[in-house]
């Protein structure tokens, strides 16, 4: 078998970047803990649901922006991914509203 050596240069760990990743993880876990506290302290209702949605979007923002690196991509790619999600938001609003008008037995 042909044996050819590949020259690999391993760069040292980027301490600042790794620290930032752990900070993001901390934020995600903290937000989840806050969600837990809200789940057991606030009464059920639209205000609670609204809070949950906001916190979920915060978590989604950190995952997509930092972990998936979208925040640092070219603007065209950033918007190409984000803009179509408007349809999802509208779909959610329309269908949940529609659901309240459906009679079930």
């Amino acid at each position: 078998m042909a044996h050819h050596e590949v020259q690999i240069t391993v760069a040292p760990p980027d301490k600042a970047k790794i620290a930032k990743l752990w900070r993001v993880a901390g934020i995600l876990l903290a937000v989840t803990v806050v969600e837990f506290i809200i789940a057991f302290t606030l009464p059920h209702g639209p205000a609670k649901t609204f809070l949950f949605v906001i916190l979920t979007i915060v978590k989604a923002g950190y995952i997509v922006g930092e972990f998936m690196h979208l925040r640092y991509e070219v603007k065209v790619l950033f918007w190409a991914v984000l803009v179509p999600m408007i349809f999802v938001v509208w779909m959610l609003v329309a269908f949940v509203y529609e659901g309240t008008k459906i009679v079930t037995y």
Partner: protein
Amino acid sequence: MSHTSAAVAPGKSVWDGGVSPMGASYGKLMMWFFLMSDAFTFSGLLITYGLVRSSNPAYEGAASAFTFATTHWPIPEKVFDAVPFLHGVELPLVFVGLMTFILIMSSVTMVLAVEAGHRMDRAAVEKWMLWTIVGGLTFLSCQAWEWTHFILGPGNGGTQVTDFVNGAWITRTIEGANLHENQYGPPAFADFFFFITGFHGFHVFSGVLLNFLIFYNSVTGLYDRRGHYEMVEKVGLYWHFVDLVWVFVFTFFYLV
């Protein structure tokens, strides 16, 4: 950040060819667009859950007096209140919280693997990929337990239902859940549980397989020979997406 747009001659735009206007490789772009289509699929499932849930009667009354009935939609925290080895102890959403923690942590180890890949650090990629695989398998095991518990029922005697069968009212007990009926609420409740967490669980499963493939290819030195670890990044995008979906499932299925 790492993608500095290539110099474009005056009077020409990045869209005239020769450079990558989105500053990402073909594979990465296709992964993004696949994930968008996948996001629409999951949105379809979760929004249909919202539609059916809002069309079913909600439980009226104090949460402490809640009982299972097929006539109203259950409060999720009353359904998912069991933890392995703690039979009979009411710990609402604790196990789901643990599963969320596991998945977020495996996302962190994945992003650390991607970071190691940028530095061509094969040993670190192997280490973090292995942790990510462990995280994924742990999550799947948790889900297997949760499904088993959901299907068999909590063992509280089930829920009484009265059906009109062959001209007579018949009272019987439903215990556990299947696609046809369940003791927790309307039949659609269990259907959505199986479809939404099942579809997500299948994504986790395929994610673990892909992660293993990446791990294997790192170990055999494929990416060193190739000169870059971009595959780690692409599969990383998929794995983070699986975590992202769980964040939404956690909110819209378990919390709301």
